[in-house]
């Protein structure tokens, strides 16, 4: 038998009709997407600059997703639980930032000493998020660390509701406007593209934070301890690692990322509301899974990927199919893409390949 026949034989034995259906399913979606893309490129009049703009918009939105996704991934990597309340931790970070910014604005510091103000606001947001995260960990997760897997998922959902409606009771149900910063008005030009200053800031800060996080987890003593705790908590304790403390630190780290995301979000979108954590939370969860949950660069990649697809997808894929109001369907694109990626890479873009099962 030659190589080719052998391959064929292998496939024939290993896969059955359902696998074929899955691939056909995937291919059908892909075909529709390609057809839509080709048609869009033929029929629409967007020039290359417009396309580039879509990508830039996607990256800055993706940066926020990515920062939130990092928190998901960090916690997941250590506790193997989906921290459903993470979106709310982000929201509290934004509220922390809001009140600080308002106070600074009142005192005239906001535009007087913008850089200093930004640093203060970032610190406050990170602290607020961290305090909330630690509280949630202590009350809702720690007592259930040995419970079946789905139980902490439910307390996480409970924590999410509790935080959301606590914020609603405390701060009201309407939106609160975040003060503008003169320094961040206008745009910078990169490669002939105009990028809003706050967006540029988001992209830069999110990249820096992620690089810092990666370094922290890989190189520092605490980071190594985190990875050890992720693998085996009992053995980690036998090394003299305080497992509870490391878990708390992980939450703090993840929450700090969410706090930073809260500030950046506020600087781009200028609105803070009790409900604001819900959608980004879901999106970040999606991003984390897309990149391979538990994987730090994966979360980052997933976030950007998702942001870009949401921004680009409606124009690129749907418009050519003649679908009215395609922007409304951007989440459909995002989730379909997620399914596609997972069909062909069941553990996400950078997830560990478990193509073959362990026995």
């Amino acid at each position: 038998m030659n190589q080719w026949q052998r391959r064929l034989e292998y496939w024939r034995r290993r896969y059955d009709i359902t696998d074929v259906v899955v691939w056909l399913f995937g291919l059908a979606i892909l075909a529709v997407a390609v057809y839509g893309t080709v048609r869009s490129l033929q029929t629409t009049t967007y020039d290359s600059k417009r396309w580039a703009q879509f990508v830039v918009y996607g990256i800055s939105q993706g940066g926020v997703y990515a920062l939130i996704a990092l928190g998901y991934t960090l916690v997941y990597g250590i506790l193997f639980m989906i921290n459903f309340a993470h979106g709310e931790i982000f929201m509290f970070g934004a509220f922390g930032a809001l009140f600080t910014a308002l106070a600074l604005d009142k005192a005239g510091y906001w535009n007087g000493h913008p850089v200093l103000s930004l640093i203060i606001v970032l610190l406050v947001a990170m602290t607020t998020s961290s305090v909330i995260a630690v509280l949630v960990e202590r009350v809702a997760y720690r007592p259930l660390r040995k419970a079946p897997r789905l139980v902490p998922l439910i307390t996480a959902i409970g924590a999410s509701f509790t935080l959301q409606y606590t914020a609603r009771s405390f701060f009201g149900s309407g939106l609160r406007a975040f003060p503008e910063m003169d320094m961040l008005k206008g745009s910078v030009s990169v490669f002939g593209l105009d990028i809003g200053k706050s967006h540029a800031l988001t992209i830069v800060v999110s990249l820096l934070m992620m690089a810092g996080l990666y370094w922290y987890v890989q190189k520092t003593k605490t980071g190594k301890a985190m990875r050890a705790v992720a693998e085996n908590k009992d053995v980690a304790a036998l090394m003299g690692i305080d497992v509870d403390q490391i878990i708390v630190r992980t939450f703090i780290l993840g929450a700090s990322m969410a706090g930073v995301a809260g500030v950046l979000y506020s600087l781009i979108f200028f609105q803070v509301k009790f409900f604001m954590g819900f959608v980004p939370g879901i999106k970040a969860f999606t991003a984390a899974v897309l990149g391979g949950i538990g994987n730090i660069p994966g979360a980052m990649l997933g976030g950007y990927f998702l942001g870009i697809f949401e921004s680009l997808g409606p124009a690129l894929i749907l418009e050519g199919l003649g679908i009215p109001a395609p922007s409304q369907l951007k989440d459909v694109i995002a989730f379909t893409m997620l399914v596609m990626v997972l069909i062909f890479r069941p553990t996400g873009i950078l997830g560990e390949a478990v193509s073959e099962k362990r026995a």
Partner: protein
Amino acid sequence: MSKKHWLIVLALVAMLALALAACGGKAEEAPATEAPKEEMATEAPKEEATEEATEEAAAEVTCEDEWGCIEIAPDEPIQIGVMQVLSGGAANYGEAGLGGVKVAQSERPEVLGHKVDLVVEDSQCNAEGGQIAAQKLTSNDKIVGIIGANCSSACTPAAQIVTDANMFMISNSCTAPALTAPDTHKLGFLRTVYNDAYQGAVVAEFVYNILGLKKMATIHDGTPYPQQLQEVACQRFTELGGECVAQEAINPDDTDMRPVLTRIAEKQPEVLFFPLYPEAGGHVARQAKEVEGFENVVLVGADGLKVEKFLEAAGDAAIGMWFTGPEVPQNEEYAKKYVEVNGSEPPAPFGEQAYDAYNIILDAIEKVAIKKADGGLLIPRKALLDALYATKDYQGLTGTLSANEYGDFTSPETTKIVIYQAEKVDGKLDFVPKYVYFNGEFTEVK
């Protein structure tokens, strides 16, 4: 364990109650077959009002209303149902509505010597929320009427239920045309908020005739109010000879509007009409300034955006933007009272409409209620509803209100639509009225 204990006790009590009920039935010497009928009568005083009640009251006043009466004991308050969305993403509308009612209540806590008590229910922003809230309120036979709900998806099933129960609801923010369209209107449904059909057409006329622009783009957020409003506007605009170059949609929780704006920019509209709510609207207004191709596009919003919150959300990006909205005279006093009673500024519009609804209901009660000698009240249901439909030229916060046969308190004949423009007044953003539309004509405001 202890939880199980009291469950058992509760079950015991329940059984005891059953047994007593059965015995009681016999003791009253009523034939067993008639017992359920009697129960039905007490449950909802429909045509045959409670017999004992009639007998007792016979001495002085009787209830002759074909739908029965609400009986209020001397020291008993009058109950008004309030159903608003109080949870979920749209909770701010419900909060504003409830706040408006509370302002009204604080000003007028009593009617005919009886305290007014609010029975508040969360109708959420969906069908089953509206259904359950309406069912709960209508099955309380002491409730006179209902103020609410907010979302058309909650109002539609509620209207049916309320009508079936011979009750009524006055919505403060359900603007969907279908609710008061001749063929779909339910008798128990009324609204102090205006009908979108009218406002949308005015937007089209304003853009086409006054601004003189011929290419319009619209954005809605997939919820009933914006979707219908832009639909009507585009229809009228096309009739007038303009062109709707893009009808786009987003999701209410979206934040990044730049992609959709970029796509719209490509169609080169002269005007963008986005009758959204403050959150999404704020994002659109701000981000339109960042997207190439929007430099000269005129922005137009509707009354959903004509709120303080939107100016906060949009900041300076709102300057020069147009808004339409029915004439709601700026009422300093209401705004002040609102803060006094509720502790914060209204988080959303539609509080005034709820305020008016409260007063309209109280006025109607005053008209039809029958006083008993002991100080109690009889409120005939049918007469009350008739009185509501008979409301004429009521001077409310939101203008002059007169009910038509389909439950609309506002109408093109009575309601003026005002066109505002956002401007900086004394360094502070504000809505400045520019035109008033009435009886098919625009008049400039000086």
